[in-house]
């Protein structure tokens, strides 16, 4: 999924760059430069020519390319966001109980840095309740049997 979102974003940026410096922005820049140049040369020919040409709207293909690029970039960025986590304690804890570490993997397959693990770990292993004498006796018997 991550390569898909990244490539979508990159493609969108390329498209935007084409419309701007090469695709969207550059074309737009070229267009406005050309228009003002034309207006200037026309006004030198005759003083009555209208100045409106300089502020004429962009050609349709550049506008379309810009809008399509924006939508594609947005899609890529949305797909690139982190997975959300449930905010209710019971839903969140239940999800961790069921999925464990697998549920905390981000889009690139690594475990999230702030993954805390089982929220009930404190209740499930309480060192204060360990019967150390019993464990020692069991270990001694196991050693004798060897």
């Amino acid at each position, binding site marked *: 999924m991550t390569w898909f979102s990244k490539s979508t974003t990159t493609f969108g940026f390329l498209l935007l760059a084409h419309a*701007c410096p090469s695709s969207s922005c550059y074309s737009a820049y070229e267009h406005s430069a050309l228009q003002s140049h034309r207006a200037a040369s026309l006004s030198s020919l005759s003083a009555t020519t209208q100045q409106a040409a300089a502020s004429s709207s*962009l050609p349709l293909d550049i506008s379309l390319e810009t809008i399509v690029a924006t939508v594609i970039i947005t899609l890529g960025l949305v797909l690139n*966001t982190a997975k959300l986590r449930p905010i209710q304690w019971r839903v969140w804890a239940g999800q961790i109980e069921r999925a464990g570490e697998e549920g905390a993997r981000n889009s690139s397959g690594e475990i999230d840095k702030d993954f805390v693990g089982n929220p009930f770990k404190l209740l499930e292993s309480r060192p204060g309740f360990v019967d150390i004498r019993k464990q020692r006796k069991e270990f001694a018997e196991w050693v004798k049997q060897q």
Partner: protein
Amino acid sequence: MPTEREFQVAPIVPESVMHNTKALSNLQSLTASIFGVAAGILGLESYSGFLFYFIFTILTTILFYTFRVAPTSLKSGLGAFDTSRYFRTQYEFWAGGVFGGLAGYILTWTLFYGLVRA
């Protein structure tokens, strides 16, 4: 508004709330700058520029809902457009990012407008 008692009965996880809010606001501020670039290239002025921003911000939020919230939220039995699984209030999700990204939008909008038209 939930009461103190309800928070005791059904507690929420502050880390998850922060994580979700951060994911959404990061996306909103990033996309706002991109929208500014697009608006500058299109040469939008005054109200149409702000209209452009609001339309695309709403589009972003809807996309975010479709890809990040809806799949698990609908599976867990919540209704359509109900974000209560991941966000505390509906307002926070649907309208929270609109004004957060506006400053970044105006910054790149004016910059690219100047670059292209000047």
